[in-house]
């Protein structure tokens, strides 16, 4: 580690190393599109880019090239990588939203996925024929253009749900608050599961489909330059661009909030509620604001998620998802923006690539009847699917981080007293 750090601290060497790594891994992925390891190395070199010391402008340019140029190209070569990139983006935005509530304001929210669900269902219902069942007639699905309106509707509805949850639980703190938010998350899921009667709002466990996708408004433009748009290629790229946009806005808002007087008020509440109140921080308003802000990001991402999936059902909004997002910010570092991004990326990649890859590999070995240490892998139980052990990963992350590094991998600059005090 020390040697790497030394190289990264020298601007010239760092630039050379990072640029060549990005180039080599990108070249590698484009020639061996099925190699998971190469793609992970590509992701790792983006991480190195973050740690490298180099001029700020250059760094931004390189990030834009890597995420805006190389990634879409690689994603076109292997569509699964695009899917991973979009998922990572969605979880980064979710983690950043939860980071406001847990990391900045210190309110442990275990039902965060509920807001994500609220956003997703708001577009799912109106962007599909589902709304006809509620209002009658056949005005729905709304035209794809409404998608952009619903990004804001999602923000509003989720923020409203945040206020709704925030109001009654304000008097609680610490672990009670955590349990109540957990209950709230479960209530939303049970509602989504059962509101197919008396009026069919969510279509119950069967879920809603087909959900409208955002309009390809630049289609004539593409035709003008002589590209015949193929929806199978265009949509992933388009969604990726939208995700990048949302992540960008989220990061920006997070950064502005962190140093604003609101952000400082949140941190004051987190450190010592009584002292904060004595200093004139309006507790009620600030806590409500934290809930609403955190929720609103989840709402916007939810709208995008439902448009990407075309189909949603309550299965996507379980307690496990809430804990997954929590594990992301714990891993990265509570209250730290780069931490949330890193955590979300690492956990998503672990789930989507490492576990799945391990599953596939094990299956191949099993089918080939490979013998390891005298044990024929063909005898391996069929129920053993490494891809299904997300909870184990989340659990290990939570326990190990709490015991060994509660401030996370990339701790927030203003180290929280809540964590360092003993």
């Amino acid at each position, binding site marked *: 580690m020390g040697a790497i750090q030394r190289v990264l601290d020298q601007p010239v060497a760092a630039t050379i190393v990072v640029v060549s790594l990005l180039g080599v891994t990108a070249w590698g992925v484009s020639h061996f599109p099925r190699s998971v390891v190469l793609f992970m190395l590509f992701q790792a070199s983006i991480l190195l880019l973050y740690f490298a010391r180099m001029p700020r402008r250059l760094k931004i340019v390189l990030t834009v090239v890597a995420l805006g140029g190389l990634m879409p190209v690689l994603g076109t070569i292997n569509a699964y990588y695009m899917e991973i990139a979009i998922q990572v983006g969605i979880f980064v935005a979710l983690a950043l939203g939860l980071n406001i509530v847990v990391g900045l304001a210190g309110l442990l929210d275990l039902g965060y996925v509920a807001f994500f669900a609220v956003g997703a269902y708001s577009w799912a219902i109106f962007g599909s024929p589902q709304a006809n069942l509620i209002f009658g007639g056949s005005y729905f699905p709304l035209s794809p253009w409404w998608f952009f309106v619903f990004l804001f509707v999602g923000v509003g509805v989720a923020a409203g749900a945040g206020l709704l949850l925030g109001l*009654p*639980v304000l008097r609680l703190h610490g672990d009670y608050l955590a349990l109540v938010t957990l*209950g709230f998350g479960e209530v939303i899921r*049970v509602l989504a599961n059962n509101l197919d009667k008396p009026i069919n709002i969510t279509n119950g466990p069967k879920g809603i489909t087909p959900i409208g996708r955002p309009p390809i408004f630049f289609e004539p433009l593409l035709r003008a330059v002589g590209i015949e748009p193929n929806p199978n290629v265009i949509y992933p790229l388009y969604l990726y661009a939208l995700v990048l946009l949302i992540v960008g806005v989220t990061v920006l808002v997070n950064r502005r909030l962190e140093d604003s007087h609101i952000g400082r008020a949140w941190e004051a509440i987190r450190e010592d509620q009584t002292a904060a109140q004595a200093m004139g921080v309006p507790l009620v308003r600030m806590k409500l604001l934290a809930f609403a802000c955190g929720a609103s990001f989840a709402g916007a991402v939810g709208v995008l998620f439902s448009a990407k999936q075309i189909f949603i059902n309550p299965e996507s909004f379980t307690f496990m998802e809430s804990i997954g997002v929590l594990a992301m910010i714990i891993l990265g570092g509570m209250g730290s923006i780069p931490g949330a991004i890193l955590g979300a990326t690492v956990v998503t990649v672990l789930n989507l690539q490492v576990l799945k890859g391990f599953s596939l590999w094990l299956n191949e070995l099993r089918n080939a009847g490979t013998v390891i240490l005298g044990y024929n892998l063909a005898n391996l*139980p069929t129920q053993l699917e490494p891809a299904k052990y997300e909870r184990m990963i989340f659990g290990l992350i939570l326990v190990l981080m709490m015991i060994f590094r509660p401030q996370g991998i990339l701790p927030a600059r203003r180290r929280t007293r809540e964590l360092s005090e003993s």
Partner: protein
Amino acid sequence: MDVELLIGIFPQVLIDGITLGFMYALIALGYTMVYGVLEFINFAHSEIFIVGAFVGVELLLGMKSAGWLDALPWVIVLLLILVAGMAVSGVLAVIVERTAYRPLRHAPRLIPLISAIGVSFFLQDAIRLFESLWRNSFNLVYPSMDVLNTRFELSSTIDVSVKSLVVTAAALLMLWGLYSLVNKTKIGKAIRAVAEDQSAASLMGINVNRMISLTFLIGGAMGGGAGVLFGVQYSLINPYTGFIPGLKAFTAAVLGGIGNIPGAMLGGLVLGVLESFAASYLSLLTGGAFGAEYKDILAFSILILILIFRPKGLLGEVVRERA
């Protein structure tokens, strides 16, 4: 609406609710004892509970394949799996405390809670991993015992299965045992002393760490016993089954007044009965518009309402009184 039907099923619903309530009460004890001593929500208790159920099913399946299940009297079999489930769960709870909670005992409150959530998730998949390797299946069914499935018909609409009588009796026995352990013995006194004031207790020559381990052992054993009874009563288990009953048992503990042992029993019973009524009557009363699934919402609403309006619960705090 058929009023006669509503009245007719009333006793049945009540009996089912009481059985369920005793189950919640047993699980709630684990939460409430740990909270009383450490002021900490042992989130992993729901998995400690379901581990007991798995120990029970493994033993039963093992005995079945060895042909003992029909040879031994059912009381012996039941006692055997109950004791085994309690032992394994109790020891597991102690191990969890040692590895995941003790290093964090003096950290800020949210830290051990997050660690406990991690343990809970880890254990769920650990059980799944074990059962996948061992049986190639993690959705297990308790082998049925004929005696337990016998039902006494009290009237045309009401019947009581031997199973629920046995479950209720076992739960009562365990509750009575725990109550006398905590209130009548020296060990119980030491535990109460630690709950009251750790440093003062340690000055009086009480080994605080050992008492905390003991609390986890007892709470875990109660949870494990509840797990076995849960399996006997409802048959179907998987590694994720424990979570919702665990959450509801926590609600029961809060309802009765967390940290308060009789409160946990009362809270469990109240919640069990309420839930049973919600499950049976809600869809009848609303003409099928709201199904039995809303009973989960009922439990969580109770949790939220109690925490907001009467956080000390029905019986208030007896164990934990601090200046």
